[in-house]
């Protein structure tokens, strides 16, 4: 068992739930409320030092009684230790947890993926949109257990909606970070981008 669990219990008391070991990895359950404080403590306390967020994902079990879990895979690069932190959410209630993007910038797309596939809302996420499915996707959240394997709409409707999408909308210049840096680009590159056929360049004449 990872000694971080005892340290967590000593610091956060009974907001830390049960802990178990699976295949050599320690899993610790944390209440939803103080989640961000717990993760920040794990990251910033020198003797913990979990500075790397490997992955954020979610699990829904076939047993409808079991809660949906959001899983954070943490790793301390210096100490070479892993810790898995789980939050349990009641699927019948509000599926929302605090975003950890303020702690790890890399959580941005990971949380978007969990939102896209499971419908979990991350409070405080800077840009919570679908990431794998297109943004107008209306059939629901594909990895939820109540989602039929072939989707909710008929195949014809799926084809119609797919063909109605504009393939260039996903890659518009507005969406790329380069649009924010437009003012700092060299003049000839600005000129080239202005003449580009794709997207709209902000701040251009």
């Amino acid at each position, binding site marked *: 068992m990872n000694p971080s669990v005892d340290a967590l219990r000593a610091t956060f008391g009974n907001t830390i739930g049960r802990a178990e070991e699976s295949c050599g990895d320690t899993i610790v359950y944390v209440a939803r409320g103080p989640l961000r404080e717990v993760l920040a403590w794990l990251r910033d306390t020198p003797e913990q030092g979990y500075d790397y967020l490997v992955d954020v994902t979610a699990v829904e079990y076939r047993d409808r009684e079991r809660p949906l879990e959001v899983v954070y895979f943490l790793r301390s690069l210096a100490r070479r230790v892993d810790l898995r932190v789980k939050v349990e959410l009641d699927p019948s209630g509000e599926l929302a947890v605090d975003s950890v993007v303020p702690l790890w910038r890399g959580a941005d797309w990971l949380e978007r993926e969990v939102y896209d596939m499971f419908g979990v809302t991350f409070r405080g996420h800077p840009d919570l949109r679908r990431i794998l*499915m297109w943004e107008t996707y209306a059939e629901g959240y594909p990895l939820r257990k109540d989602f039929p*394997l072939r989707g*909710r709409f008929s*195949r014809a*409707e*799926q084809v119609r909606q797919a*063909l109605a999408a504009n393939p260039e909308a996903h890659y518009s210049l507005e969406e790329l970070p380069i649009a924010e840096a437009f003012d700092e680009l060299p003049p000839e590159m600005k000129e080239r981008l202005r003449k580009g056929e794709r997207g709209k360049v902000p701040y251009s004449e």
Partner: protein
Amino acid sequence: MKRVLETKEVAGQSPNYLLAKVQDLVDWAVNASRANSLWPMPFGTACCAIEFMATAASRYDFARFGMERQAFSPRQADVLICAGRLPFKLAPVIRRIYDQMPQPKWVISMGACASTGGIFDNYAMVQGIDTIVPVDVYVPGCPPRPEGLLYGVLLLHKKIRGESLFDRVPRRDEQPLDERGLRLSPEQIDELSEPFGNSIHQFRSA
């Protein structure tokens, strides 16, 4: 001309006989040129693209059959080879590419996934690219071996040699999407997308 008309072969034939012969000659010349210098546009999305690359590389080398130049631009291509599964997110992309290709154009659907959806009978995958673009040759296999793709290319050659400039075959015309934004009717798409019956029982709520 008069001497030709009086020869033994031509005398007694229909007056259209010579015209038909000329048409045949033109067709032969045009089709032979087209078939023997196809410019493929590879649209590789999955493992079939690996076999496609093997087909293009030196051991199998489809340049032997005139596909010397691979066009990575749809405007300079006449065969679209869809190698691999096609998710719904890529459906408007392959349709755009198909629309950008100049006539005459052909499509080879390479592999089980491109042809039918294959094992990916799920919410994210197009069940056969023929619901998006018209397909000329289906190459089965998962993935097809390079010999399979070469056989498909040779079948396409055969198909091209059978075409005629003087027939207004419907597929010669542009095939725009209808007012619903679909290539086929919704009933046809649903029917094409039905599973083959070897998958486990699954329900669809709509």
